[in-house]
Structure formats: structure tokens, C-alpha cells
């Protein structure tokens, strides 16, 4: 097992290098330019922009720039943003990560806490009226875009019943845990409710698969109470595939939700990376994408390891 993990970690090094090269080439070959916004400005001359490019090293050949970037990155220096206050990118990510994590974890708690009971109930009452209505609702939930749901939430809880803040993370001049909590409710629900849909589907099918297994029939046959059969035998086993979904959700946890963050002016990673893409802020695009790549890898690894933990039949050697 240990050697397996070590192998996986060693594998990631060439993969990350390859990813970095590909991303670097793609973003630099794509049309556009980090200084494009200056081109539409009065009083800023071509020479001004040319000099700026020179200062930022944008005129060097692509491979030289990649080499510069990778040698700095390996030393842990991801450089400065070309936009956002020309701050160190490390600092930018460290500033944004807590907001994203807070939102992601809260919305995950909401979706897991609701999705698992719904999935179980739906499976146990298969083909009942309740099951059908849940299935229909889930499909509606899956097809509703999250921004639409976010706007509905704002309309109801910030306008019609004005009890919650419209957006942002803190009230200017206030702050504190309670204030942040109030700001968190709407975006967390907007993001979480949508998560319920797919998760409940997984839970339902996993549960259905398990209750048709022979050992459940055996358990029933030997006269165990229905509740014990369901919750001790069936439910625990049905959870196994669901737990691995958790690992796969980790990258999503970090990357943040671009749309929800935008609607609720939540200062997270999603806004950071999408703004970087629009502004062609190459160093930020590189840093955030490498970070996401690393997280995808970590998530997969955790998912694989958690298989082994929850299911003794699986072994990696």
C-alpha cells in the first residue's frame, strides 16, 4: 500500500510538468494579450505599451518564457499577477482560498445532509409516488442552472423577505463570525441544493443495488428487524461508492463556483481564475491551473485510498 502511494506520487511529477507545458502553450497561443485593455485608452501610446511588454517580459520567445516560468515555479515563486494589484500570486491564492473553502464545505454539508436521506428513502420506497416525485424534482434540480437558483434565492430572501444580505462576505465596518454566517447562507444553499440532485441519484441507485444483494435477503430471512437490516447492513454498504465521490469532489471544493461567486460577489478562487482568463493574466492562469491539477490528483488518490479503507476486498499492490 505504501509503495503504491509512493508510486502514485512519483507519477504525478512528469504529469504536472506535461500539464504545465500544455497550459502554457495554449494560453499563450490563444488570441489576446494581457495589455489589450490599454489599447483602447486615450493618451496611452504604442511605445508605452511596448515598453510595458518589455518590462513584463512578454516579448521573449515562448520557450524562453516557459523556461523562466518553470524554473521560478520549481523554486516556489509563481510571480506577480499582471493585474490585481500586481500582488504575489501565492498571496492572492492564500487570500482567496478560505472564502472558497468556507463556501464549498458549507454547501457540501447541505447537499450531503439532505441527499443521503432522500436517496435512501427513495430507494426503500422504489416506484412509489414519493419516489417518482423525488426523481422528478431531482431532474428539475439537475437541469436548473445554479445562477437561476441563486437569483431566485436573492429575490425571495433579500428582496421580498429582506432578512439576509444580498451579496458580499462581510458588512463594511462590521465583520465577525455571525456576519459572515449570514452572508454565507444564500450562496451555500444556491450551491448546495444543486449538489443534492446528483448525489441523491447516486445514493438511490447504490442503495437499490445493495438491497437486492443475497446477504440482505439472508439477513431478512434470518428474521432480523427491518430497521437493522436496512441501516446496519444495507446502508453501510451502500455508502461505500458514495464516499469515493467525496474524493472526486475535492478539486471542485478548491476551484470554487465561478457563477455562484459572481452572483453573490463572493471573493473566492472562482472569480480569481475566471478574471485571470478574461484579462489574460498569464501568471495567475498558470498558478491556479497547476493548483487545480494538483488537487485533481490528490482527490483521485484519496478516492482510491478510501476504496481500500471502506472495502477490504480491494487491494493495490
Amino acid at each position, binding site marked *: 500500500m505504501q509503495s503504491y502511494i509512493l508510486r502514485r506520487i512519483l507519477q504525478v511529477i512528469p504529469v504536472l510538468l506535461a500539464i504545465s507545458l500544455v497550459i502554457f502553450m495554449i494560453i499563450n497561443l490563444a*488570441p489576446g494579450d494581457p495589455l489589450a485593455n490599454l*489599447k483602447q485608452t486615450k*493618451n496611452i*501610446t504604442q511605445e508605452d505599451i511596448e515598453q510595458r511588454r518589455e*518590462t513584463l517580459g512578454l516579448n521573449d520567445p515562448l520557450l524562453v518564457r516557459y523556461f523562466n516560468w518553470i524554473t521560478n515555479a520549481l523554486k516556489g515563486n509563481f510571480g506577480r499577477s499582471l493585474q*490585481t494589484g*500586481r*500582488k504575489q500570486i501565492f498571496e492572492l491564492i492564500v487570500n482567496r482560498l478560505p472564502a472558497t473553502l468556507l463556501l464549498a464545505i458549507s454547501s457540501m454539508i447541505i447537499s450531503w445532509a439532505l441527499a443521503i436521506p432522500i436517496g435512501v428513502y427513495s430507494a426503500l420506497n422504489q416506484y412509489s409516488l414519493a419516489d417518482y416525485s423525488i426523481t422528478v424534482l431531482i431532474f428539475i434540480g439537475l437541469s436548473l442552472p445554479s445562477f437561476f437558483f441563486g437569483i431566485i434565492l436573492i429575490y425571495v430572501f433579500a428582496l421580498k423577505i429582506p432578512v439576509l444580505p444580498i451579496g458580499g462576505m462581510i458588512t463594511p465596518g462590521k465583520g465577525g463570525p455571525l456576519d459572515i454566517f449570514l452572508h454565507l447562507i444564500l450562496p451555500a444553499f444556491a450551491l448546495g441544493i444543486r449538489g443534492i440532485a446528483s448525489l441523491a441519484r447516486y445514493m438511490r441507485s447504490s442503495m437499490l443495488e445493495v438491497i437486492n444483494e443475497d446477504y440482505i435477503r439472508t439477513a431478512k430471512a434470518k428474521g432480523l428487524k427491518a430497521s437493522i437490516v436496512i441501516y446496519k447492513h444495507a446502508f453501510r454498504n451502500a455508502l461505500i461508492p458514495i464516499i469515493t465521490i467525496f474524493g472526486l469532489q475535492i478539486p471542485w471544493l478548491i476551484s470554487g463556483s465561478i457563477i455562484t461567486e459572481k452572483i*453573490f460577489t463572493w471573493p473566492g478562487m472562482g472569480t480569481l481564475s475566471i478574471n485571470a482568463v478574461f484579462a489574460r493574466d498569464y501568471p495567475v492562469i498558470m498558478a491556479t491551473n497547476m493548483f487545480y491539477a494538483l488537487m485533481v490528483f490528490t482527490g483521485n488518490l484519496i478516492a482510491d485510498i478510501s476504496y481500500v479503507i471502506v472495502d477490504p476486498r480491494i487491494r493495490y499492490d
Partner: protein
Amino acid sequence: MKSKILSVITILFLLVTFVSSVQAEEAVYGGTFVDTVQTNFGEIFNPIQYESSYDSQVIDLVFDGLVIRNSTGAIVPNLAKSWDFSEDGKSITFHLKEGVKYHDGHELTSEDVAFTFRTMLHPDYTGVRYGSYSSIKGAAAYHKGEADQVSGIEILDKYTIKFTTEYSDATFMGNMQRGILPAHLLKDIPVTELENAEFNSNPVGCGPFKFAEYVSQQYVILDAFEDYHKGRPYLDQYMVKKVATDSVPVYLKRDEIDLVSLDNKEQFEELKRLDNLKGFTRVSEAFRYFGINQKHPLLQNKNIRQALAYGFQKEIILQILNGYGVLANGAIPPSSWGYSEDVCKYEFDPVKAMAILKEEGYIDRDGDGIRENENGEKLSFDLNTTSQDIRVEISELFQEFMKQIGVEVDVQLMEFNALVDMLVDSKDWGMYIMGWATGPEPDMSWIFHSNAAWNDVRFFDDYNDKLLDKGKSTMEREKRKEIYAEWQKYISQELPYIFLYYPELTTVINERVRGYNSDNTRGLLLDEKGSMVHKIWIPKDKQK
């Protein structure tokens, strides 16, 4: 008779109550004004280093410049109480106000002014504002590192500073609005390091508000500056809050923001009717246009360009804009003193358009609805647009009108960045739709001059250059006015652009705010003395 006296008394009574009710509205101190921004700041709050125009919203409150443009677009005193020009118009001597304080209590002197402008000319300067001041005498030598000093910037005494330019430049004063940096805080920082300085996220200037708190991508809080040289602002605080465009109506209905500009005109219509809000519109100092590639094999022909203009019914654009725009026949905005009506307007006339095309040898020879010349070359070109709804709609309408006169237009959608790249890198494109923000200054040589960096349409014309040069180097406004009238007429004949419209800006302000300029000629917070942000106030019972 009695009833007459009675009515006079009634009117007098009404007048008195009216006057007294107006008088009762006496400006009071206190309160927080909440302004908004709908896009992220670039977070460089430094007048010589910033690149995002959203940053200037904060910079203009924290920093003051020597002069400022007022509500009519004229240059008026700010930190400089007066100035005089030399005989040849090449030197300007500014007399600074005495006793002007920075937010940290330090006094502003001509040293600070010299420092600010010298830094932008410094060889190590990394920002993009050198070009605005390269006409200062000796700037080039200093910038190249060949001179230790800028000969055109001379400190005469503590409160007097003289600028000399290489040639007389009527637009130079417009550039003297730049916010003045505090030399005492920045002079020890190497110029290359200025762009990364801590100062940029915690700036100190001598403007009406001092920088208090910034929470990234959430809000900026500015506090009233007690010793502001034009008097302490009535407001205690000025906040600029980041809001999501989709939620703007909710913020407004909940009285959480005071000032916002709305792009969505239907929303504007709805919101301005609410009791707690007031809506204002003004024609912007910007124009939208079709740029025409002057080196395109078909479009380099002036007659064809004119035919296209005759064949397009521009008025339809106003419907797309819901009426929020003014049709443009030139580049200079109607609110500018340089604006002239005497230009070719190309009233919609498809018959004339078709006649011109026929005369140029373009006839539909193979019956496919598109004209071609005798060599069989089709009258067809591409029109490039960003995916913005209004621009796409206008492009498609144009395509439809061109079809009617036998011209094939291929509308291409692109991302803004990609479109800008294409204009510069490729020479094959035909037309594109875009906009320029010009300001009130009628000098357009930065777009239209042969040597202009932004002459994307490659319009190279000697007479045009001559007029632009003359307009820029002439100092008297009346003479300039004549030159620009001539220039506007000439451009409308040559037609490097088909001018479309000046967009109308819509702003909503909360009813509780007092003291702004409701004329709104160049914005609600500008009057004849320039920025009046220190004069706006909120009645006691409405402060939060």
C-alpha cells in the same frame, strides 16, 4: 379686486413657504455615501501606475491634480490657483495654492508636482503614462538616460512650477489633471519598484477623501479629509462597494447603495419610477462606429464606402438602443465645444447607393443577388464584432441592408481580445464594430492621425494630418473650433469610419442624496468648478 388681493396674498404665502422649505434644506455634515463598482478593481490605487479604469474611480477621490475639467469640459483650477502661458504658448507657469495638505499632514509644494511628472519620464518607469508627457522639453533625453534632469520642468519656488513643451500643444493642459503624488513618501523607493509599492494599496494624496480600508473584491472605505483644500467634505465616509450586476435592483430597493450606472435600460425605466430613486441620463463622450479597412481591396474606394453609408438606415439603431443614444455623424461628442453639425450625414438613400455602386462597375452579373465587377469579383467583405448583444444586432441589421443593395456582408463574432489582435496583426479584414471613449477634448489625432497608434483602419491622409496638427498646436479656442469644424466635415466625406451613435449613460441615485449637479452634463458629481464630491450631503434623518 378683493379676490385678486387674496390670490396675490396666497401666491406670496405659497412663495414664502416654498422659499423657506428650500432654505430648510441646509447642508449638514455626516453620513456615508455608497457608490458602486460592478467589475473588479485592478487594485493599484496610484495615479501614475494604475491600468484599470475602475481604479481611477477611487484614485480621483484620494488624489487631486493641478487642474481639473469641469462640467462644461473646460479646464479650471484645482491645486494650481492660476497659471500663465508664455508668449509662444510653449511654457506654462503654475501658481500652487498655499497650505494644501496631504492626508498625513505634510504640505504639498512644487517639489511634489515635479516628482510626480518626473517619475513618469524616468528611464526606469514601468507604467504606461510616459507618452502623455513625452512632449515636455527634455523628456526624451531624460527618458533615454542621457540627461539627469528634465529641462522642461523647472521649480521656480516653493509654490511655483514651470512646464515647457517642445511645441505648442493645446491638449497638454488636459494631461495636467493627473493626481499629484507625495514625494516625501515615495522618493526613496526605486522607480522600478513603484509598481509593487505598498503605497498602491494604501495611497496618500491630497484629495477630498483619505483611504481608510480596502477589502479585496468587496469594498473600499474612504474617510472625509478634514483639511481638504476646498473645505471638509460634508460626508463622513465615501464607500465604493462591489455589487453583482444582477443584484443591483435589489440593492437599490433596499436603499443599500446610493449611486449606480445601469446598462440595462429596461431596468432603468423601472427603477427611476421608484419613490426612493432618481434616474438621470446623459450622452456619453464616446462614440460607436464601423471601422473600415482603408487598405482593403474593395473598401479602399471612397465611393464604395459612401455607397455603404447611404444604404444603411442608421435610425434603426435607436430602436435597438430603446432610444438611449444619439446618432453620430462624427467623432467629437455633441457636448464638446468642438462639435459641429455641418457634416455629410448620409441620409438613408438606397437608390443613390445602388447608383454609386453601378457607376463603380459593380453590377449583379450572375443573378445571385450580389454585385460583382467585370472581373467577376464579388462585392463582399467581412464585418467583425464582439459578442455584445447590441453590436451583434447592429451588425446583422447592416448585413440585411447591404443585401438590399447587392452587397454581401459576412458577420463574424469574436471575443474582444481576439478582435483587437486581429485588427493589428492581420490586413485582410473588411470592417469591424467598436467604440472609442474620447472625452470632451476635440483633438482626435490619437485615433485619426497617420502616425496614431490606434489608427487601426490605416487611414493615411495628408490633409487630415495637417488639420489635426493645426488643431493641436493652435492655442485659441475660437480658431481651433474652426479647424475642427473643417476636420469633421472632411472626415465625414473621406469616411474611414461609418459613425453610428453616441451611447446614452443612465445613472440612478438615491433620493436621500443632496447637493449634486442635476444638470448631469458631464456627470452628477461635476459642477463648473470641477469635482463637487465634497459638496454632496445627506439629511440628518436619512443618514445611516
